[in-house]
């Protein structure tokens, strides 16, 4: 009898499990930020017990997000599906992701915000887009051989 561990592992790409890992990564990465923000609010409000709880949750949730990522990175980064792992690949993936956000994603969000009557939120998206464009340029510079 062949031991099950000797079977080749199934391919993760394009499975529901990969989708679930991506969803869990996005959710836990976001939650870690959310708990950290809640923790600071509790601290300012003078509720140290709640602050500590939120801070500890933020740390653990960040660890969860990193764990999802460990598994996802076997088949590429989860935000745009670019191959990732070694630094040259990561620089290429990050440059593409940041450029897309700077030139398409965020400007589109800004247009929608303006159309819906939220000029301050539109200005926020535009500010972030401008900073992303700087990152894209830095990433390009980091990729090109000196």
């Amino acid at each position, binding site marked *: 009898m062949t031991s099950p561990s000797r079977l080749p592992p199934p391919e993760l790409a394009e499975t529901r499990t990969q989708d679930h890992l991506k969803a869990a990564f996005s959710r836990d990465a976001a939650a870690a930020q959310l708990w950290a923000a809640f923790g600071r609010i509790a601290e300012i*409000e*003078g509720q140290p017990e709640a602050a500590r709880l939120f801070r500890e949750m933020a740390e653990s949730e960040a660890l969860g997000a990193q764990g999802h990522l460990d598994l996802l990175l076997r088949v590429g980064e989860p935000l745009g599906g670019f191959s990732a792992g070694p630094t040259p690949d990561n620089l290429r993936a990050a440059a593409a992701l940041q450029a897309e956000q700077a030139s398409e994603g965020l400007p589109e969000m800004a247009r929608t915000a303006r159309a819906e009557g939220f000029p*301050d939120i539109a*200005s926020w998206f535009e500010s*972030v887009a401008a*900073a992303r464009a*700087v990152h894209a340029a830095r990433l390009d510079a980091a990729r090109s051989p000196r």
Partner: protein
Amino acid sequence: MSYDAQHIVVLSGIEAIRLRPTLFIGALGASGVSHLLTEVVQNAVDEALAGHNGRIAVTGAADGTWTVEDAGRGIPVDPHPATGRPALEVVVSTLHSGGKFWGGAYIAPGGLHGVGLAAVNALSSAFSVEVRRHGEAHRLVCARGQILSPCAPVGPAEGRGTTVSFRPDPSIFGEAQVDLAALRARLQAQAFLTPGLSVSLTLPDQSWSWCEPEGLSGLVRSHNEGRELVHPAPIAFSGAEGEVSVQVALQWTQGWSEDAHSFVNGIHTPKGGAHADGFNAALLRVLSEAAAGLLEEGEALSGIDLREGLTSALSLRMPVPAFDGQAKAALASREVEPLVSRLVEAGLRAAFSADPALAAAVVGRALEAGRARAASRRASARARYRKQNLRVDHAVYREQFGIRSKNWHQSARWITDQTLLGAHAALCEAPADAVVLDICCGSGVVGASFKGKVGHITGLDLTPEMAALARTRLDDVVLADVYDIPFPEGRFDLVTNREVLHLFPHPERPVSEVFRVLKPGGQFIVGQLVPYSAVDAPWFFRVLKKKQPLFYNNFLDRDMVRLLEAAGFVDIHYTEVLQWEDIDTWIDTWETPPMMRHQIRDLYHHAPAEVRAVHPFEIREDGVIWDCWRWCVFSAKKPAG
């Protein structure tokens, strides 16, 4: 390569400190030098707290040498039983040595538990100690942690005490200067914390001395100088349980910001910690009871509203406190929190039961703050721009600027900054008889900066209180809305404006109105606070939006150029003005809720490295934040003919 015992390096304490100074003193530069000085001063303070010292004299020499003299018991010079060397030599050359590890000599010391003098010695290019004990003076001389001249008697001495002199090593600290304002505040605080102790600071060109018999009440009074008060005298009380004791003084002002000063064994804890949390919890508990009958349905008293306008001083004494890190910014000893809370609660309860009207006034104020905040949130929502009718709710602007007009010129430095005003006037190309309009003129200082260069200056503002201020400076002022400027086309030679376009949901509209009322060839001069670049833009947005709910546009300089071009302006150019703003004053304002003030300070404390690299700001030792703001003052012309 093998890895065995010969690779394990054993550093003496002194070498370890010199190799990794930040582990011991938190930071290099000016803050590191201050930390060394604090260490030495703290030893003198500990002698005072133990009841043996009535005087601390700090002297700064022109060459960077600091001398701290006290009238305490003097560091022992007799042979130390374990080493046979004079105790003084052990103290200045051995980490984790000193009189504060075991009970007996000190109950609640604030010094660094033995890292202290040895760390100062290790990090000083010249270091000496003179001890006066039992009628004899002893002297020890060191440099960079090494003893040059051992502890020896140098003759008879009058009185007793210790004098420590040190010059921070320039090869570690450069020529860093101590933040004098912060040092003065810290020394004065020591005098407040130990009533009867005289403290002096002498520099080559100036000197100060303090003796504060009133204690913490005096500290609160001194911080509240010039502030409008809710009650005439600070509330003060103290309490003790076992070896732990607290002293408290507090007083509410009509201001918006909280001004909290906390100390543990005489050490300032700028980030608070367990004792401050205990204090805040007790305050909320006691005043919630007083608020019981005053709350509307579904309303709760919030601690953060209670502390609005509160100036407080809290001093805790306890054996063996634990701090977050060597820099001691916050008290980590959680176990004292309930005890502090109990002691403060008892003190507050007694104070408020003696003066029930005061409790009612304080609670009423906090409830009012919460209600005003809820109303302002609703108002901000009302200000939401609706595309169809280009309307903004004027009441929102009138309310905010009506309130702010009461202390407009004191509410931030930029408003009357002469360099910034001068930069507007310097761009003026209008003829000497020019007719000028200053839109959203506020108190009229921008329009007034053109006086002598132009003929007639009209101001325009939406807020009656502001218009009243402007009438004292400008030729005439109209109450009107910049979305519909009440003047015919081509009326003015020059229109000016500063720091307003970012507050409009639809800035194109006022800019096109300005274009309309200008004569052909007329000039528009407009100043705007902008980020340094795209890199600090998101960070800057967050700071501005938390300060000002009506912040709608985070203009980069290129966005301002585009806005002007889109309205038809030509010949656009601008000058840049850098201006240091006092952020704590700037955010001490009605429209900025206390939570946002805390979060704004957080944004400075945790600014990303990329932001720090492009946007200069300083967080002083006493926590005060100064931001070097970048203004662009634009000049644009309406095409001639």
